[in-house]
């Protein structure tokens, strides 16, 4: 209990010294509505955390064991997923990742065989299908996949022992979302997107593995915007809450301050994520970022549940095969555990293992294929050429001065 109090005090001290309030003084940048957390949001978290500490719920249990990763570096060295997946073992014997790899939602189906095709080429409109006719809402299809590598993950297989539920949060739905029928094999999950805004799909799987309950939350956030849409609707969508309070574990991508509705991540960008448990930031969660080609970087969430990664450039095709619109997929996997006892389908368990995934896309950085030097060089060269050409043309047409003398007497 003393340890818990010390942790809470340390967290409060860190929060009061943080500059979040200065960076985002207005309510528009509140976490859950777009960017980093505001002071008001932090105060709300404190209150909710204090209330939950009294009821010994999951976040409280998580907060009760904040030192389990004290010996971990803030970000472990990068490596291929095969190396990381069989690497460190969690205290209490909890291996990284669920058995068979992480469950995650993707807007592209698995590829046939090996190869490095990007989502753009593989799926055309990235799982986006037009509706039945003009003006009909766009339908989005996503696939549930299993594995720790975006390129190699296959379809997730049906597991009769697992209890699966899907929740879709739309711009027009209740904040807690609405249930969605379960994934239908390889056909994936489909939903309509009638309004502009972000659609969040949560697929939660619960399964008993020995005396541990494995809870996996696969999340996907899909933006649906048009060029000529209702501006108020767009503004509301960009400010809408982005976390689900009932999610056992959730990853939220931090939005940058200048993000617009058609924002795209580029390789080389720094991107932060928040790990939330039941809507509250979770400190000490182990988070892995897996790039399109399977490069892995590990980190641990801080007291705000935040962890940051750089999207490494891992797209190096021959020049004549380079595509500037190549859509690469990243995968973020967050994991934590807690000592909780209970029963699931009549079977007792003594611990819970949480895993959450979030996938997204990123594209080649313009710096990889655009050159200012060449642009300015060609521009200046052409400017000088045209200028000199005009000068010489005019000079050539100037008639030499010639005096004419008239002798009026003759």
């Amino acid at each position, binding site marked *: 209990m003393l340890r818990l109090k010390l942790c809470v005090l340390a967290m409060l001290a860190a929060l009061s010294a943080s500059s979040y309030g200065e960076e985002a003084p207005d309510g528009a940048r509140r976490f859950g509505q777009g960017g980093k957390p505001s002071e008001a949001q932090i105060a709300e978290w404190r209150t909710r955390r204090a209330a939950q500490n009294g009821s010994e719920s999951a976040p409280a249990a998580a907060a009760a064991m904040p030192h389990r990763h004290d010996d971990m570096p803030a970000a472990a060295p990068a490596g291929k997923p095969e190396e990381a997946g069989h690497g460190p073992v969690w205290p209490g014997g909890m291996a990284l990742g669920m058995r068979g790899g992480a469950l995650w939602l993707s807007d592209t189906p698995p590829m046939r065989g090996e190869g490095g095709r990007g989502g753009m080429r593989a799926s055309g409109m990235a799982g986006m299908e037009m509706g039945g006719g003009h003006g009909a809402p766009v339908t989005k299809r996503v696939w549930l996949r299993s594995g720790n590598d975006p390129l190699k993950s296959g379809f997730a297989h049906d597991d009769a022992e697992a209890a699966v539920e899907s929740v879709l949060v739309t711009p027009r739905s209740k904040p807690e979302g609405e249930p969605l029928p379960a994934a239908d094999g390889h056909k994936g999950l489909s939903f309509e997107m009638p309004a502009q805004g972000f659609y969040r799909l949560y697929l939660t799987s619960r399964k008993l593995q020995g005396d541990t309950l494995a809870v996996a939350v696969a999340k996907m956030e899909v933006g649906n915007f048009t060029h000529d849409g209702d501006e108020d609707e767009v503004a509301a969508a960009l400010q809408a809450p982005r976390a689900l309070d009932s999610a056992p574990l959730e990853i939220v991508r931090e939005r940058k301050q200048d993000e617009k509705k058609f924002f795209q991540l580029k390789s080389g960008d720094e991107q932060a994520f928040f790990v939330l448990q039941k809507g509250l930031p979770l400190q000490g969660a182990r988070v892995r970022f897996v790039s399109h080609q399977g490069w892995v970087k590990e980190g641990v969430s801080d007291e705000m549940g935040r962890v940051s990664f750089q999207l490494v450039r891992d797209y190096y095709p021959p020049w*004549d095969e380079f595509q*500037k619109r190549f859509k690469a997929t990243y995968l973020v996997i967050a994991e934590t555990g807690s000592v909780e006892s209970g029963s699931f389908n009549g079977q007792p368990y003594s611990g819970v293992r949480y895993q959450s995934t979030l996938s997204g896309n990123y594209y080649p950085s313009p710096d990889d294929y655009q050159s200012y030097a060449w642009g300015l060089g060609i521009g200046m060269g*052409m400017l000088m050429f045209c200028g000199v050409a005009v000068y010489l043309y005019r000079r050539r047409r100037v008639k030499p001065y010639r005096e004419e003398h008239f002798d009026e007497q003759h």
Partner: protein
Amino acid sequence: MNSTKPRLQALRDAVNHVQFNRFRFWFQFAAFVLFVYGGYISINLGSHMPFFSCGYNQEGRAGVCYLLPLQHQLGQPWPRLFGMAGIAVLTGFLMFALWFIVLNKGWCGFVCPLGTLQDWLTALRRRIGIRYSTYSQGQFAQLTRVKYLLLALLVLIPLGIGGGLFSHNMSPPFCLICPARMILPMFTGDFSQFTVDFSSKTSMIMTATGVSVMSLFLVGSFVKKRFFCFFCPMSALHYLLSKPALLKLKKDGSKCTRCGDCYNVCDMEIKEIADDVRTANIMTDDCTLCLKCVASCPEKGALQASFAGIPIFVSTEEGFIKRMGKGAHHGK
């Protein structure tokens, strides 16, 4: 009722005797500020503007030049384009036409930011004291067709892209070579268009051509008045729709003495404005409706601009004398 007529006449006299160049300068300046920086105060007039309010000026634009969405729409896959998406193309074109008929080609002469920039380059050249260039009549006759060729390519290349005949890296073809793409964002501090794209051979050729055209634009506009307007495909598109437009340039040939003042001040070197004494609707495809010809005409009522049939600016001897007395820099 009796006092209304003198007031109306006084107003007409005030307009007809206005220091036209000064009025036009400030009008153009205001339009430039509006369409290059208006986006910063949340002005958005849509994406069907009949002039070069460049869509690549993402932060500052107050509207988007219609040629950008038109090329994107025409670049859709054929089954979609010739299906329901065709309705969106037609709707967009209708919106463009509605904007256009209000000012006719006056959008070019008074509002277009790229046209305004050319006028400013001309003013700079005049201050430096460098003489301007002109085309011969033979060159004029040949070059005036270029804008129709560009308009045809502007339509056909996106259609080819939609049909899989050309690379998507070519889209939008005209915007990639339009000087406005590089120059207008520059006024908001955005130099991101000053690059050559090496992601594919097509992109490389198109962006390098774009940078070259921009340099050509700067040099050409410096030595030749309204250099780019002569090749502008938007101008060609305008002329195809100009019949029902509300703003018109009219000439009364019976009052014309063929003095040639109107031709001398014409930035586009349109000879018909002086020579043609038969046609009443004197606006040609190269005209930008800048109305400098009306301002320079000394014959009362020989030239006039009318809006929906109502004369709004008429040539008068008094106005001519007043403007000439102030030094109108005509013909330099």
